[in-house]
């Protein structure tokens, strides 16, 4: 089974289709960019918003699937503090801002905020959990930035054994797991409070010989 199809996060998917368009996102995006650049952003707004985003990304020389875009949206929604006031009046300055935000992703705390924010961001409105396809796409994006070697196994395991939506709890605990448990799983405690899906993942890893746990 190939695990490398480029999954599209659902927010991009929804931006692609005018019917389920989240106008407010774009409007507040404009606010974030500031009045000064109203002229700069206007051409994008005038277009169908989805294409506008795409075009914006092209101009920014950013892949729309780049996780840094999540960061952008978070900042713009005041979820993350925008600590420096950039004078963004040109596409170049926006680009500079992006590379700064990208560097921020390497910060643990900031990454955690983005990671946890992504769940609510990516899930369908009114749903409590995140569709598996979307979740897997998001994980691929996020863990591309913050490297976790088991991510492919995790996604493969979910598709083989779970094939259901992902709860917020499992989502957020997975980051804890990725951050705290070493690759030999030597500090993993089966008596702990890990979500059962993670317990089963550990079983899957050991049963399939992907990880040899040290005998203690």
């Amino acid at each position: 089974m190939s695990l490398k199809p480029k999954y599209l996060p659902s927010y991009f998917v929804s931006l692609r289709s005018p019917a389920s368009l989240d106008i407010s996102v774009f409007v507040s995006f404009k606010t974030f960019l500031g009045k000064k650049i109203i002229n700069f952003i206007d051409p994008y707004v005038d277009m169908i918003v989805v294409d506008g985003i795409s075009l914006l990304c092209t101009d920014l020389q950013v892949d729309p699937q780049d996780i840094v875009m999540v960061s952008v949206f978070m900042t713009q929604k005041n979820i993350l503090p925008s600590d420096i006031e950039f004078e963004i009046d040109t596409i170049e300055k926006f680009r500079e801002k992006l590379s700064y935000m990208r560097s921020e992703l390497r910060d643990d705390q900031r990454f955690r905020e983005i990671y946890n924010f992504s769940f609510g961001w990516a899930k369908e409105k009114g749903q409590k959990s995140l569709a598996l396809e979307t979740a897997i796409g998001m994980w691929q994006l996020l863990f591309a930035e913050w490297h976790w070697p088991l991510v492919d196994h995790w996604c493969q395991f979910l598709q083989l054994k779970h094939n259901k939506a992902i709860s917020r709890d499992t989502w957020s605990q997975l980051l804890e797991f990725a951050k705290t448990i070493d690759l030999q799983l030597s500090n993993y405690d089966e008596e702990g409070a890990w979500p059962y899906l993670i317990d089963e993942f550990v079983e899957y890893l050991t049963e399939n010989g992907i990880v040899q746990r040290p005998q203690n």
Partner: protein
Amino acid sequence: MSMHERKTIDLEQGWEFMQKGITKLKNILEGLPESQFSSEDYMMLYTTIYNMCTQKPPHDYSQQLYDKYRESFEEYITSMVLPSLRVKHDEFMLRELVKRWLNHKVMVRWLSRFFHYLDRYFITRRSLPPLNEVGLTCFRDLVYQEVKDKVKDAVISLIDREREGEQIDRALLKNVLDIFVEIGLGNMECYENDFEAHLLKDTAAYYSRKASNWILEDSCPDYMLKKVQHELLYVNASQLLEKEHSGCHGLLRDDKVDDLSRMYRLFCRIQRGLDPVSQIFKQHVTIEGTALVKQAEDSASNKKAEKRDVVGLQEQVFVRKVIELHDKYLAYVNDCFQNHSLFHKALKEAFEVFCNKGVAGSSSAELLATFCDNILKKGGSEKLSDEAIEETLEKVVKLLAYISDKDLFAEFYRKKLARRLLFDKSANDDHERSILTKLKQQCGGQFTSKMEGMVTDLTLARENQSGFEDYLNSNAHANPGIDLTVTVLTTGFWPSYKSFDLNLPVEMVKCVEVFREFYQTKTKHRKLTWIYSLGTCNINAKFEHKTIELIVTTYQAAALLLFNASDRLSYSEIMTQLNLTDDDVIRLLHSLSCAKYKILNKEPNTKTISSTDVFEFNNKFNDKMRRIKIPLPPVDEKKKVIEDVDKDRRYAIDASIVRIMKSRKVLGHQQLVMECVEQLGRMFKPDFKAIKKRIEDLITRDYLERDKDNPNIFRYLA
């Protein structure tokens, strides 16, 4: 008095004098006529040594005298002691040895006094072994080394003889053992290596061979008592108990009740001595029980090859055997082990192991419920007196205590009880109520409330029915022309059944209407749900030869009635007209056309039902009976029961978690799981994974959240 120059004594001359004294001593020891030593004799001998040691070199004979001292012993031992020991055997040899040892000690005492001066200067200065030690060492090297094995064997055989009840000379035994101790000159090595190790080995072997002499205290020398009790029982307890043929296992296997009682009495004296005994007891019972499971498993798999129509018989036998096993070992606990709580616990733990294993895909909860059903139903496989039934029920309920899935038992039991009650298969109402009382005592009121409700429902239903008959008699216009009996049940008490599924034949629709009218005169706001699948009909079938009364289920009757309107019907026509599922249609058509009574002819005439079959009424059917019952095999309800129980468990776990968190507000994961298991343990043993899933579900539903800083801690969200 002036000091005069002492005359030098040469060695030969001095030793000759000493030799006389030594010979005298030997004669005394040998019991030959000889006068006692006087103090002059002693003085002279001592002085001679003194003088010989204090002469100027080369006439200082200290070294020579030291050697001659030793040689004297050696000479005496070789010429007298060893020959006398070699000609004696067994107990006589032991006596000789004791005597020789005593003599030797006397000899050492005297000789070392004569030679005492050597000890004071020569030996001290040269750090040589002192005289006393030299003397005793001689005996050890020359006598002890030669005879120790023979002595050991003789002693052990003496002990063995006493174990067999013979009187033995205990003083002798003690004296011999003293030699083993004393010969070590202050350390116990000789005793331990040359004797004790052998004794323990022998004793272990002995008691393994002959378990009947467990009361060691009465039979062994006092000297041994402390030692042996400690060494033999305490240190070697496990080795003893685990002896393959005659240890505790062996005794249990061979049902040596008296020996086990003795073992209990003995081991209860040692601190924690009963722990290993109870462990072995537990192991033994577990093995026996597991063997029963295996046996039942084997016979079940053999049976599968044959026919499946005697289902339950093997399982019945299995439960019987488990009950017998329990009777047997409960008696052991009560009698041999004097009702000690440790053994009650061991028995419980053992039964919990194999009672929860299940046989051939059936859980033990189901087996027990089936067992009860067989006892309680009419014409069950068990033919028992009332007393025997009571007693057996009592025992089944006792076994239930070991089953962790009590909820599963309850659900199976309810299913079977429902069949007994609704199809009038219950043999005896008193027994039904009696087992419920027993279950209530053991598992609490909640456990039996539904079952009791079912039994009560049936009494009420009978009253209700006579009310209905009165109503029909007084309202002649309402009478549908068909006798109708309705059993009104309370929804919550009974297992859930499919309702309103069947397309009822018009004749029966009328009946239902009439009853509904009647029921409304009695109660308001009560909704009747009709469960056709549980109905029975008696119908008259007019065949070419004669009319036969058929006792069938409502399903079967509805299918047969279709043939009043059409001669031939296809499978799909029947299915549409009845509005039943494929499973049901296949089942009932099979009972009417492929089983013993072929009321319907099937095309093609095969043994199984297929969806392309066509059916017609078999007008030629005949039977010598005027009334026949056409059974419809019940659907296997096992899967549904298990699903229902699983669902109930999810609710139960949810409720338990919420209850705990509501009172504790903040709680660690492990504690939460533990408390949850504890709360629910009386009904079932929740799986950790299941609890985890429920916790996660409650997080999603915002009843709980994880602590921000510690994901192992949960908070209750009010």
